[in-house]
């Protein structure tokens, strides 16, 4: 139960950061926090079950996924900053309707 509360708190903190931080890199970091919360939650649910190894395998996959995601995300941020000189979320509104 305490794990659920921990993960919910982590996820909410991450979401709060994603929605409020102005720096794109910080937003990416907060998204990592959310992903981490989800990973911990998945492994915690798997812990008491006979196929707990599957949950741990999922955790490893998710860490790898998070690393790949961070790499791609940071590359995009660097590319956008290079081409437009902007790295703040509120400046990146080219797709406004």
């Amino acid at each position, binding site marked *: 139960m305490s794990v659920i509360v921990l993960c919910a708190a982590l996820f909410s903190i991450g*979401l709060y950061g994603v*929605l*409020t931080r102005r720096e794109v890199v910080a*937003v990416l970091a907060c998204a990592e926090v959310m992903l981490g919360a989800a990973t911990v939650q998945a492994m915690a649910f798997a812990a008491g079950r006979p196929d707990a190894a599957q949950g741990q395998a999922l955790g490893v996959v998710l860490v790898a996924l998070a690393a790949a995601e961070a790499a791609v995300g940071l590359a995009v941020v660097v590319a956008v900053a290079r081409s437009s000189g902007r790295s703040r*979320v509120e400046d*990146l*509104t080219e797709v*406004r*309707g």
Partner: protein
Amino acid sequence: MSALASAPWLVIVVPLFAGVFIAVFGRNFRGAAWAAVLAPLSALACGVSALASPGASGSVAWLAAGGRVLEVGYSVDALSAIMLVVVGTVGLAVVVFSTAYMAGDRGWTRYFALLCVFTASMAGLVIADGLLGLFIGWELVGACSYLLIGFWFERPSAASAAMKAFLVTRVGDAAMLVGLALLWRETGSLSFATVLHAVPAMPTATVTAVALLLFAGAAGKSAQFPLHIWLPEAMEGPTPVSALIHAATMVAAGVFLVARVWPVFAAAPVAREVMLAIGVVTALGAASVAITQTDLKRVLAYSTISQLGIMFAGLGAGAWRAAFFHLVTHAAFKALLFLGAGSVIHATGSQELSELGGLWRRMPVTAATWCVGAAALAGLPPLSGFWSKDGVLDAVWRVSPVWGSALILVSMLTAWYVTRATVLAFGGERRSGSAAHEGGLATTVPLVVLACLAAGLGAVRRPLAEALGGEAEPAAIALMVGVTLVAALAAFAAWRTYRSGPEADGRVSSRLGPIWRWAGEAYGVDTVLSGFARVTVPAVARALHDSVDRRVIDGAVEGTAKGARRAGGLVSALQSGDAQWYAALMAAGVIVMLALGTWVSR
């Protein structure tokens, strides 16, 4: 022959096929006339065989609407058969005559194809077993009339005359369509058998309304006052067409219609009174206009209006068999006069009475046959016009001596104007132009045949009345003698007056004063009606444009566009381009969905 008697619909199919055949062969098809002869021949053969054995009928369901079924079919009785014979005979004369008259015209094949289509439409009108089929044929002959009046469409006057004929008859047709709708509402059918059977049970007001509406249609087609204004201008068409459509057959369709649905009019005395009054007014007005016209074809056009007025007066007096007999004889002698005029126009290139004259020496056959037609029109015994006009006059006189006297005046004017036209065109000396000469056999044979009919048709008075289920009334001798004397005197006076040439118009007009001028302008009816249309139609159109078109129709179109744009504006406010805003919306959406899911599964 027997095939035609058992399958009279061939009388529609054969001419239609001939017309399509000619049209397919294209512009340079010299043999078009040979194919076109098939059309009137089939009408003639069908009419003759149906006279021998009438009664063939058949019908097919055309449209089913709810529990009611619209049927079209054919039914050939004596009336249809006689009408088919008239159409076939005059049509045959006209087609043969046209081979000479239209020779070398660029529209040669178009002309004959249209004649075939006209014959098919007229046959459809005549053999229809119900008002629906009749109305279809009615509109088709109107369309053919439009196309043939405007045959030389590169002439602006012909194009506008065609338009006018089409629009003016449309006024009557609209009323007729309302009458049909009324009958359909009352009886649930448009076939003559059902409708005429139901007439005695209908309230008088309904029958009167139906009769008046049908008469309005007939008045438009048959050029009765005040819808007569299209017929004089219809003379822009080729003269053989005027003979066939605008003298003998199509314009007589109104008379045919009234005769066909006679029980409706028999049960509507008010409608008969109206018909009698309009018929006499038309006959008198048009005859008095005819004495002033200087154009040969226009004299004949007003004469046709006047004679149709006499027929309607006869119908109004209740003597539909006499009126129909006058239709038959009129078809013969008026077609003859028109073809005679065509012969004159073809030979001289002119139709102005002041430019003709002295033609009897150059064109003896045309002159002789014309004189037969003129005498028949004037009602001189023993020619056909005498018998038929006398029958109508007798019936009208019995109903009302006032209207009867007016018709005697019409007889007088008729004898006067036709003598005037005859003397000015054929008598005296040639006044201008080069040497005219008689046409070939294609011109003279139809004239001679029609002249024989115009002279001799009086003999069929009794058999015709009997075929139509009545009997020929014995004529009132005193009336016959009186009218004939009046007509003969008028003809003699006209001959004495116009012997000296067209300058006599001046003497007559100074004698008649303003009446002559007024009649010369056809009493200004055309001006008044055209002016009325010119003022009211644009006014109504503008009012409708401002109210309905601008507000309702444009409003709907522009409103739709405006609504879409406004809705788009509302939704596009959501698309701020801010990724965090999207993420927040997504989170909110997920929360809402989770909440809903929890609440539902609880």
